[in-house]
């Protein structure tokens, strides 16, 4: 059978490989500035963020919230600047919510922006999208981004049920953040 040379079309990643810094590494939350990235698509995530912000504040953390949306049109550049400001005012970032393909990509990209600014960060996804988030973080240069999975489906739950999910997941969040007991 005839053989011959063919040219390989496959692309290779051009991103710089990064290393996610440890989060709190056994330290306390108090005195830390913790940022939570909201997403205008998911009201369930808004409720969870409110619950977690309250819990984090009770532990002495300063909590900053930033609401992300799709970056197209006139607001794209403004939102980039907002992300940059957000990242540079926090010690630690909580980035959500990966709850669809596109929003998982955008959540991971924003978390990677924080990681590249040397801000330890965790990505929050519903469990259906954890694998996608991990793969997208890898293709964006980070092999070891901490990811916390929430129940799926989440958006179909009542506000009361979602807030209960948040309360139940807070202990896991603390563990992912690395807070000392």
């Amino acid at each position: 059978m005839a053989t011959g040379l063919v040219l390989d079309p496959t692309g290779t990643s051009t991103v710089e490989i990064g290393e996610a810094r440890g989060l709190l590494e056994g330290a306390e939350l108090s005195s830390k500035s913790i940022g939570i990235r909201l997403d205008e698509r998911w009201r369930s995530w808004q409720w969870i963020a409110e619950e977690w912000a309250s819990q984090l504040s009770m532990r002495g953390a300063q909590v900053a919230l930033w609401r992300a949306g799709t970056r197209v049109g006139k607001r794209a550049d403004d939102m980039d600047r907002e992300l940059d400001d957000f990242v540079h005012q926090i010690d630690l970032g909580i980035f959500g919510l990966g709850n669809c393909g596109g929003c998982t990509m955008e959540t991971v990209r924003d978390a990677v922006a924080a990681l590249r600014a040397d801000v330890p960060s965790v990505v929050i996804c519903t469990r259906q999208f954890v694998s996608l988030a991990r793969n997208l973080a890898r293709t964006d240069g980070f092999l070891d981004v901490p990811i916390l999975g929430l129940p799926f489906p989440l958006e179909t739950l009542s506000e009361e049920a979602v807030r209960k999910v948040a309360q139940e997941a807070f202990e896991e969040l603390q563990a992912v953040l690395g807070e000392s007991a």
Partner: protein
Amino acid sequence: VRAASVETELDPAAFADFAVASGWSDGLPCIPPTPELVAGYLAATGRAPEQVLGTLPPLFADCTVERVAICAAMAGAPTAAMNLLCSAIEAMMARDFNLASVNATTAPVVPALILNGGIRSRLGVAHGAGCLGGALGAGPSIGRTIRLVMRAVAGQRIGYTSESVFGQPARISGIVFGEWEERSPWPSLAQRRGVSGDAVTVFGAMGTQNICDTIAERATSLLKMIGLSIAYHGCNAYVAVNHEEEGEIVVAINPIWASEVIAKQIPSIDDVAQLIWESAKQPLASFPEDYRRPFEELGRVDSDGNVPVVRHPGKILLTVAGGEGALHAMAFHGFGHNLAVTVPVSS
């Protein structure tokens, strides 16, 4: 030539297996991209092989002209399509196209290419009868080239970097068609978007939606039917749009309706879009109760208690294409999280 070369069997069946195993192909047979074949594609463009057209997500890989040429060779696209392919890839790199989300999403969105200018006939891209499938022409091979670029170069893989739930047939063949400018009573889509001459509009299309009307005597009635048809409850423009700039719908109108029915009664295309838009809405009360609050919170309910499917008439992108049998229009609902981009086709 900078791409790595690999020695393999060139027999069609053996190469098909090799291309699948190597992550190069979509499962359909491919033409082996030999250096000689690829050189023909590179010779057809004034661009340098190593020119980077963009860094494509999700892999964030450099998409060089050469890699496009390899994919075009595998797909059997015309060599003369190289400038179009390169320009289309560059258009997809525009911020507004949001390719990262397009390639990762659960949605079946695919970049559709709408061509304007003489390039349609030079490449043999259909714009008349059967232009979305069935007409002989270069559209499917050009569309497949784009899909192979997304797979092989960008690294879009179902179950790994793409969470696509269903996909759609156009994720293999793409959607590539021309506007039938010669039969349109209006300036072309690209001209209205500020680009004259050879041009390509890339649009994140969720698929094709047939709109049938066997009466269509009065323009106002026909445009109302089109408006009513595109505003279905589960479209992405309703469920995925949170900001006034998001949400677009392309509507392709056949040349008979465009010239013989609509333009004779309503000459201005802006008025045409306005009339479609005025009917493209649903009463808030028609949505299940638990779906209503987000529309209210986003300010999407008008003073009559209706929810327009897109925020203003400019979000309905009109084009003229299709056969002279009339009776049908075709809508392409947008992804919701990106915007159409129009660029000149340049060498």
